[in-house]
Every structure is written in C-alpha cells, then in structure tokens.
C-alpha cells in the first residue's frame, strides 16, 4: 500500500465515522434545534473527508472535477438546507429545549 492509499483509507474511515456520529446525534438529541446542530455540521465535514479520501485514490481529470464539484455543492447546499429548516422551525413556533425543562421564555405565536 502506498502512502497515498493509507491517507485515503484514513480519511474515508474518519469521514464515515463522523457521518455515523451525525446519525446518532439526529437520533438521540432531545429537540429539533439540537438535532439540526448535529445534522448541519457532522454531515458536511464527513462527506468532505470521504470524498477527499476518494480523491486520493487518483483517476483522470473528469473524476477529480466531479468529486470537487460534489464537495462544493454539498458545502453550499447543506448549510442552506439547515438554515431553511431552522427558520421553518422558528416560524412554526418550536421552543428551544433548555436543560432541566425551565421556561425558555414567553411562548411565541406561530408566524411571528
């Protein structure tokens, strides 16, 4: 195995573990906003690591361009989708979770 292949395997392993952590975060976190926090960050970095690992495996120029394009698109799309989700949650009046179940503030009217 060459050095580049070891780097590729490490990046792919790390990235897939990060994506698994994202999945567990979305599954077990207590409320909508905390789940969004896990979904927005872990997946964006995880996919970049995996695709960077695939990039290390080499290939012709079209392959490199496609991989870079996928990473570029997801780097734009994932935060945008997360932002839109958070805004939809806020508009529909979802109250952020607070440790111990204290009152996080006066309840808001939907659409405010």
């Amino acid at each position, binding site marked *: *195995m060459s050095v580049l*292949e070891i780097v*590729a*395997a490490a990046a*792919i*392993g790390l*990235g*897939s*573990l990060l*994506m*698994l952590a*994202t*999945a*567990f975060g*979305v*599954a077990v976190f207590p409320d*909508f906003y905390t*789940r*969004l926090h896990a*979904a927005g960050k872990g*997946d964006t970095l*995880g*996919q970049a690591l*995996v*695709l960077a690992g*695939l990039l290390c*495996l080499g*290939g012709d120029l*079209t*392959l490199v361009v*496609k*991989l870079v*394009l*996928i990473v570029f*698109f*997801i780097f734009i*799309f*994932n935060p*945008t*989708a997360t932002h*839109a*989700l958070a*805004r*939809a*949650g806020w*508009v*529909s009046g*979802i109250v952020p979770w607070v440790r111990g179940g204290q009152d996080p503030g006066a309840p808001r009217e*939907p*659409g405010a």
Partner: protein
Amino acid sequence: MPVALAAAVVVILLGVLVLLRRVIVGPRLLDRVVAVNVIGTKTIILLALVGYLAGRPGFFLDIALSYALINFVGTIAVLRYYEGRVRRGEPVEEEA
C-alpha cells in the same frame, strides 16, 4: 483498498438505519425532514463509494452529483410548502 471502501459503506448504512428510527418516530414533521435530508447526504456518499467499488466511478459520480441537486431542491420545496401553510395559519401536523 476495497476493504476500506466496503467498511465505510457498512458504517454509513448503519447510520441510515439509525436515522430511519427518527424518520418513523418524528415526533414533528420537521424532525422527519431533518432526518431525510441527512439520509440524502449519506446516499450521495454511498453512491460515490459504490462507484469506486464497482470500478465505474465516473458513471456513479454523475448520479451522485444529480442526486445532490435533487436532494437540495426537494428539501427546500417541502420547507417552502410548510412555511406557507404556517403563515396562512393552516394545520401542519397530522392529529395524533
């Protein structure tokens, strides 16, 4: 190298299984949308990995690229519909 790729595929599929629980239990519609969005990102990576495993990465990366675009447009479409219903004061959650 194929072993590392296959291991990554298995790990990501495990993540999809964990996320499916969130899609099923909800409890809100938006929680399901978050989980489906993350599953979509994982599908893109799965497509890329399977492409390298199958020895035809160029072909599979094309599919992954178009899936990225469709996934984003789908999420935004659902959210615009949802926000429109909220702003018009229509019910957005099914009754339990």
